[in-house]
């Protein structure tokens, strides 16, 4: 993947999209393959032959990959700003003031500056997910990983999150997004991967994969989407 690229991963439920994404930062332990982000290389180690040093490299890798979860996973005992600065301060050893300045910048970007001292439970789903994005950004990662970031949201709240993500894509962030939002993929992605049974069945620009799929599995998946979409 090139810096600045936005890649969307489509595929039906159970096709392995989450598993793939989570293998990239080793939340899931892959049985094979190598992940390289910004010069940090970690290989699969299914038989646990490598020791502590690998764990340290995984942490290095994770610093370079911000992740946004379907279920937000904000820290409920911390306020919005504390959620954002927790890792910069306690992982990177950054000065708290300095971290807060960075966090405030990103909270402004996701449009939640005035919620800085609120606790997550007092926020709507869309706001929570935007905080989660700001939290990931405050770590200043090289790549952002999104796992169905709008699937747990009320339909009326999906738009505000997608807008933030589209802005990020347009300003040249490197992003990998697992999503069922075809319009977003069409508009924001440089490339689209269609995943089926743990494999990439089709790859290409959105105009090709979404508008004129070649692979029969992609065709079938998308046709179902069309019929569903047109009913709405």
């Amino acid at each position, binding site marked *: 993947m090139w810096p600045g690229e936005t890649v969307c991963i489509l595929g039906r439920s159970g096709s392995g999209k989450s598993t793939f994404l989570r293998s990239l*930062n080793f939340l899931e332990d892959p049985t094979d393959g190598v992940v390289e982000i910004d010069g940090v290389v970690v290989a699969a180690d299914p038989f646990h032959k490598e020791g502590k040093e690998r764990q340290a490299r995984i942490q290095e890798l994770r610093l370079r990959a911000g*992740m946004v979860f379907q279920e937000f996973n904000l820290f409920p005992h911390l306020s919005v700003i504390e959620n954002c600065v927790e890792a910069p301060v306690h992982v990177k050893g950054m000065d708290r003031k300095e971290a807060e300045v960075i966090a405030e910048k990103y909270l402004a970007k996701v449009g939640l500056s005035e919620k800085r001292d609120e606790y*997550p439970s007092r926020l709507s789903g869309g706001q929570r997910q935007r905080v989660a994005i700001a939290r990931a950004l405050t770590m200043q990662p090289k790549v952002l990983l999104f796992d169905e970031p709008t699937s747990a949201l009320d339909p009326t709240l999906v738009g505000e999150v997608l807008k933030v993500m589209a802005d990020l894509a347009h300003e040249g962030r490197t992003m990998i997004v697992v999503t069922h939002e075809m319009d977003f993929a069409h508009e924001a992605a440089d490339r689209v991967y269609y995943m089926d049974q743990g494999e990439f069945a089709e790859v290409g620009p959105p105009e090709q994969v979404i508008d004129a799929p070649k692979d029969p599995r992609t065709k079938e998946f998308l046709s179902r989407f069309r019929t569903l979409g047109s009913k709405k």
Partner: protein
Amino acid sequence: MEHDARALAQAVAADEARRASRWQLRFRLGWGVLIALLAGFVLVSLNVEIDFIARATPFILEGIWITLIVSASSITLATFLAAVGALGRLSSNAIVNAVASFYVSFFRGTPLILQLLVWYLALPQVGIILDPIFCAIGALGMNYGAYMTEIFRAGIQAVPLGQREAAAALGMSSRTAFLRIVAPQAFRIIVPAIGNDFVAMLKDSALASTVALQEIVWRARNVGQKEFKTLQTFIIAAMIYWALTILFSTFQNRIEKRLAAGDRNKESKG
């Protein structure tokens, strides 16, 4: 139409409130009758012994300090052991896990009174002679620590996996994730349980009367037996425990309410 509906809703609400207050009244009346009956029984049996009671009560009351000191020390020891034990039970290290689960199994699987007697009567056999108060603290602390280990473990496990994953994805080591993210959330779940156990400990500390610790029950028995008046002294002891548990339960309810109020402002799922 609309007006009627509102009037009806008000009438229903008023009726519900009336019924609730009537229930409260009967509930209190029930308590009042039972307390009067108990007081009557106490007075009938103690009435004639008023100067004995005047002599015995201060002596028994002094035991409160021992009871409180033993209970507070034991719950502190138990909390410490439970924290270590829970970490052990959750450890990926098989040996550490074995030690922790052995501790829990053994101390939960044998009677507390037997454990207490071991500290007091059996340890001297191998040359370890301890003051009764240390026997009581050691036995109660280790026994409660075993039960509380499981409570702490459940509290830690009740923190959703997503929290740990989010922490890991942010680059936190498992140690940092535990200290900064998991432990503070588990703490809110565990605190009420510690309070419950403290109240239970107040009463279980009475077992230490069997190892000659001069707490409330020991005093009630000794001063009562001399004059064959244990009925009086045990009733006094019972009243003291009852007052203590009511006092600490109210105190604990308050802490719990405050924690819950804090949660309402702060928490729900992330």
